C-alpha cells in the first residue's frame, strides 16, 4: 500500500484521513486482523511501555553491568532543578527508566529496538499527561510511529550492527517526533518533517557500547534522543520544514551506516567502548 513517506502523505491527503488511519489499514491488510484486535494489541504494548517508563524511577534496577543503576531515579528526583523544564525532564527520567529495565533483562517493548526502547514510551506517556489524552489517542499515535519505523526498516535498517546508533536511536527519535507531531495536530507533512529533522540531528552517530552491554552510552542516548524528538516536533509545528524530504534522509542515513567501519557498529571495538575506562570495566566484569 505504501513504501515511503511520500506515499503516506499522498494517501492521507487524497483520502482526507489522518496518517495513523493509513498505517492502520495497511496493518489490517498485512496481519489479517481486525481494527479492534490491533488496538487491543497496541494497548498491551503501551502497558509494557508505561510500566518500563516508571519502574526504574520507583526502584533502581540491578543492571547486568551495574553502570546505570539508579540513574532514572536520580533524574526524576532532580526535576525541580531541571533547566529543561517539567515536561522534558520527566521525559528524560522515563527514557532512562526504560533503558535501566532493559539493561536488567527486564520486560520492555522494542520500539523499534530494545537498545532504543526508552524514546517513544517516554515521549508518549509524558505527552499523554501534559495534553490530557486517552490511551486510545496514544495508541493511534503509536500507529503513526510504527508506520515511520516500518519505512526505515524497508528502505534502510534499524540494526545498530548494520547502521550504528543513528539507525536505532535515530529511528526511535523519528518515530517519537512524528507521533508527537500528530498528537499536536500537525499535518502529514509536518509529521514527516519532524521525523526527518530528528533523523538528521543524529546522523552519523556510532554504536559503541561499553563492555558490549546496553548501558553506556545507551541509556543517556535514549534520554537525549527523546529530547531530540521533542525539539524536532517543536520546529515542525512552528512551520519549519525539512529542506531534505524524509525519504531522502532515510536513504542518506543508510548510506552513512554502510560507510561506518565495522569497529563503530555494535562491536565494542571503537568509540567510547575502547577508552581506557571502558576497557577496565570490561576486564573487571568478565573476569568475575
Amino acid at each position, binding site marked *: 500500500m505504501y513504501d515511503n513517506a511520500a506515499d503516506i502523505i499522498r494517501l492521507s491527503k487524497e483520502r482526507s484521513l489522518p496518517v495513523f488511519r493509513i498505517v492502520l489499514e495497511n496493518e489490517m491488510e498485512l496481519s489479517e486482523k481486525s481494527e479492534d484486535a490491533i488496538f487491543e494489541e497496541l494497548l498491551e504494548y503501551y502497558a509494557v511501555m508505561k510500566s518500563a517508563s516508571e519502574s526504574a524511577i520507583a526502584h533502581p534496577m540491578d543492571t547486568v553491568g551495574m553502570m546505570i543503576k539508579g540513574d532514572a531515579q536520580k533524574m526524576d528526583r532532580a526535576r525541580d532543578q531541571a533547566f529543561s523544564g517539567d515536561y522534558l525532564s520527566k521525559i528524560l527520567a522515563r527514557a532512562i527508566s526504560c533503558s535501566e529495565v532493559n539493561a536488567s*533483562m527486564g*520486560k520492555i517493548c522494542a520500539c523499534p529496538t*530494545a537498545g532504543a526502547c526508552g524514546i517513544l514510551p517516554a515521549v508518549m506517556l509524558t505527552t499523554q499527561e501534559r495534553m490530557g489524552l486517552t490511551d486510545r489517542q496514544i495508541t493511534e499515535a503509536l500507529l503513526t510511529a510504527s508506520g515511520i519505523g516500518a519505512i526505515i526498516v524497508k528502505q534502510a535498517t534499524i540494526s545498530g*550492527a548494520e547502521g550504528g546508533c543513528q539507525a536505532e536511536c535515530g529511528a526511535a527519535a523519528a518515530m517519537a517526533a512524528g507521533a508527537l507531531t500528530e498528537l499536536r495536530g500537525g499535518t502529514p507533512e509536518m509529521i514527516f518533517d519532524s521525523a526527518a529533522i530528528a533523523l538528521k540531528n543524529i546522523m552519523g552517530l556510532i554504536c559503541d*557500547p561499553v563492555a558490549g552491554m546496553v548501558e553506556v552510552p545507551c541509556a543517556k542516548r535514549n534520554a537525549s534522543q527523546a529530547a531530540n524528538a521533542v525539539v524536532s516536533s517543536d520546529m515542525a509545528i512552528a512551520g519549519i520544514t525539512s529542506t531534505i524530504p524524509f525519504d531522502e534522509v532515510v536513504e542518506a542515513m543508510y548510506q552513512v551506516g554502510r560507510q561506518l567501519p565495522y569497529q563503530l557498529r555494535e*562491536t565494542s571495538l571503537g568509540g567510547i567502548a575502547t577508552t581506557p575506562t571502558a576497557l577496565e570495566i570490561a576486564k573487571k566484569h568478565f573476569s568475575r
Partner: protein
Amino acid sequence: MIGPSSSHTAGAVKIGNIAASIAGKGFDHVIFHLHGSFSETYRGHGTDKALTAGVLGFPPSDERIRDAFFYAEKAGLQIEFRHIQLDNVHENTVMIEFFRNGKKLCDVTGSSIGGGNIEITRIDSFEVCVSGNNPTLIIRQNDKKGVVSDIAAVLADNDINIGTMVLSRTAKGGIATTVIETDSLIGPSVEKSLLSLTNVLDVRILEVTRGGSDHV
C-alpha cells in the same frame, strides 16, 4: 520482549527457536558459532543466554531467558560458544550445530537483522530464506522431475496458498531442499500427505506466531 537488545536477545531467541525446530527433537549438544557483532558483544548483550533459551524453545518474552544456562543444564543440554568468520553475511549471524550422542544432526545459520527480525539463510549446505513470520515448510527431497509439482498439488488440495518458495540442491540428481512460506497454517495431515510422496525424504513444519507481538 526481554532486554537488553532486540537483535542480540529477541532476534537471537527467535533464531534459536527456529533452528531447534529444524533440528527436531533429541539433540543433547549444541555449538553456537558467532560471527561479527554477535561474536564481539555476545556476553554483554546476553546473546549467549538468548540463543540457549531459543534452542530450549522459550519465546522472546520469557523471563527465564536470564537463567537459560541453568535450564539448559537441567535439560541435560550441553552448550558451547565459538567464534567464526563467515563471508557475505549480516554482522549479527550465528551458525548453530546440533548433535545427538556425538553425532551431528544438522547445522543452521541465521542472522538477526534488526528490531528482532531474523532470517535463516542456510540449513546444512542448502541456501534458504526463512523469515519465521509465516508458517513455513522445509522439505528435503530427491532432485527428480515432478517432485515440486507433487508438493504444490498437496498444498493446493489442502487449500494452502504458497507465499514464497525457494528450491536449492547440492548437485543435479542429488538431494534438494524446498522452503515454502505459506499464508495459512499447515496441519499434520498435510505433513502426512507430503511424506507419502515418493521422492520426499523429510518434512519439517515451522509454526509461528504472526504479527509483531515479539516486541513485548
